[in-house]
C-alpha cells in the first residue's frame, strides 16, 4: 500500500517537485528544475520516485525529451526524430507522454500533431506513420495551443487498441497498434469555426479519459464553443459507452460547459473544472471549482477548492489536473497564475500549496511505498 506521493508540476519556466507526508497533508517542495525550459509534459516512473521523463521546449531552441534518474540533479536528452531524416512538419512541443501497456513501451504525442512510440523505455523513438497519413490530415487545423496531439489512451486489455485526441481535429482510434486509424467523433458538435468541412477533422477535443475497468467507456471534455450569434453554446462534457464510436452529452447539470482538464479515478470518480466560457477562460466568479461525478456523469457535485480565499480569475489547462492512485483519491491542479491546489479526499477538502509558480502547464502525481 502506497505511503507517500510525489507531485510534479510543469510550468512555462521549469518543473517543481513536491513530496508529501503519509496522509498527503504536508508537502515539501524541492529545488526548481530545468528553469529556463518550458515543461510541457511529464511522465513519472511508477517504481522509482526519482526518475522522470519530460517534454521540454523553448521558443528559440525547440523541443526535445529529457530524463532524470536522480530527482533532477542531472538530465539526459533524447531526440524523437533522427535529424538526418527529412521531416514533413515541425516538431514544436511534446504534449503528452504515456505508458503503452507493454514492458518498455512509451508513447509521445506532439505538435504538429503526430504520435511517436518507444519500445525501449524512451531510449529511441519511431513515428506511428499510420496516424500521420490519415486521409483527413490535409484538413487538420490547429486550436489556440497549436495543432497538438494531447491525449493518448491505451486499452489495458489489449495494447494494440489506442485512442488519441488532437486539437482542433478530433478523436482517432486504432485496433491494430497504429497501422490504421478511424475518426471517432459521432455525436460531437462540429467546430465550423476551424474552416474545414471534413467530418473527420473538425472537432476541438480538450481531454479524454478512459475507464480502465470498462475500456469501452470514455469521457471527454470538449471545447463547448459558441454556436450562434446570440451565444448558444454546444455541450462540453461527453461520454461514450461504445469505445468512442458515439458520444452523448453528460453536462446538463453543470453550470458552465467550457473547460480543459477531465480526469477519472480508479474508483470511477470523474472530475472536471468548468471555466466561464470559450471567450472568458477563467473560474466563474473567481472561484476555483471542481465538479465531481460518481455515476459516470449523470449527477455532479460541486467542490470549491478555495471557498474562503481571495478570488482567482485564472484557469486550468488541459494537463494541469491529475489524480493519484491512493484511497481516498488525491486530486491536484495548477492554475494559469501558478497556484497549486491539493486534495487528499477526492475533492472534499483542499489546500493551496504555499508557493506561486510560473503558469502551470501540467501536473502529475505518483505514489510509492
Amino acid at each position: 500500500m502506497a505511503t507517500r506521493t510525489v507531485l510534479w508540476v510543469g510550468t512555462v519556466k521549469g518543473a517543481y517537485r513536491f513530496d508529501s507526508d503519509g496522509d498527503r497533508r504536508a508537502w515539501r517542495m524541492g529545488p526548481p528544475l530545468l528553469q529556463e525550459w518550458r515543461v510541457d509534459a511529464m511522465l513519472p516512473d511508477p517504481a522509482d520516485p526519482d526518475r522522470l521523463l519530460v517534454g521540454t521546449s523553448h521558443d528559440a531552441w525547440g523541443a526535445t525529451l529529457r530524463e532524470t534518474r536522480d530527482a533532477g540533479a542531472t538530465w539526459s536528452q533524447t531526440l524523437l526524430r533522427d535529424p538526418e531524416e527529412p521531416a514533413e512538419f515541425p516538431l514544436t512541443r511534446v504534449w503528452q507522454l504515456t505508458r503503452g501497456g507493454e514492458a518498455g513501451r512509451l508513447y509521445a504525442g506532439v505538435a504538429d500533431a503526430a504520435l511517436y512510440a518507444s519500445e525501449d523505455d524512451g531510449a529511441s523513438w519511431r513515428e506511428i506513420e499510420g496516424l500521420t497519413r490519415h486521409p483527413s490530415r490535409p484538413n487538420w487545423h490547429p486550436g489556440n495551443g497549436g495543432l497538438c496531439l494531447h491525449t493518448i489512451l491505451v486499452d489495458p486489455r489489449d495494447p494494440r487498441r489506442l485512442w488519441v485526441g488532437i486539437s482542433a481535429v478530433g478523436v482517432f482510434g486504432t485496433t491494430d497498434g497504429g497501422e490504421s486509424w478511424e475518426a471517432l467523433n459521432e455525436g460531437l458538435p462540429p467546430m465550423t469555426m476551424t474552416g474545414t468541412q471534413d467530418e473527420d477533422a473538425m472537432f476541438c477535443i480538450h481531454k479524454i479519459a478512459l475507464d480502465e475497468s470498462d475500456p469501452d467507456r470514455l469521457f471527454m471534455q470538449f471545447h463547448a464553443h459558441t454556436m450562434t450569434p446570440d451565444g448558444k453554446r454546444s455541450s462540453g462534457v461527453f461520454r461514450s459507452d461504445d469505445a468512442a464510436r458515439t458520444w452523448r452529452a453528460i453536462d446538463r447539470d453543470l453550470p458552465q460547459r467550457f473547460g480543459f482538464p477531465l480526469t477519472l479515478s480508479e474508483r470511477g470518480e470523474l472530475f472536471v473544472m468548468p471555466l466561464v466560457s470559450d471567450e472568458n477562460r477563467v473560474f466563474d466568479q473567481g472561484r476555483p471549482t471542481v465538479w465531481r461525478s460518481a455515476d459516470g456523469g449523470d449527477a455532479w457535485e460541486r467542490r470549491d477548492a478555495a471557498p474562503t480565499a481571495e478570488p482567482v480569475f485564472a484557469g486550468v489547462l488541459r494537463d494541469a489536473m491529475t489524480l493519484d492512485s491512493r484511497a481516498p483519491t488525491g486530486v491536484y491542479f495548477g492554475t494559469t497564475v501558478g497556484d497549486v491546489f491539493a486534495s487528499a479526499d477526492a475533492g472534499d477538502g483542499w489546500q493551496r500549496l504555499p508557493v506561486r509558480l510560473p503558469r502551470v502547464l501540467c501536473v502529475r502525481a505518483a505514489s510509492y511505498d
Partner: protein
Amino acid sequence: MTPVVLEVPRMLRDCTEGRPSVAIEADRLGAVREAIRSRWPLLATHVFAESGALRPHVLLLHNDRLVLRGPPDDVRLDAGDRLTIVQAVSGG
C-alpha cells in the same frame, strides 16, 4: 577542411558535454550546419529548424558579425574563425 571554433550558449551546453565551445571543421558558412549535425546532433536539433535554416529566434555570429539568414553560404571560413550561436532578442 578548416578548423573553426563554435561557441555554444549556456542553455545548450548539455548538447556538447558541457563545453562552452567546440571545434568543428567547415571551410565555408554553408558547411557549418552539416558539421554541427554530424558531430553534435542534439545541438543541431536546437539550432536548426526542420527546413535546415536557423530556427526563427536563433542567430549565428561569424567573428562577432551577424550572419544574415539567407545567402552567404559561400562565405569562406579561415582557421581559427569564431562562430557564435546566440538567441535573438525577441519580444518586449
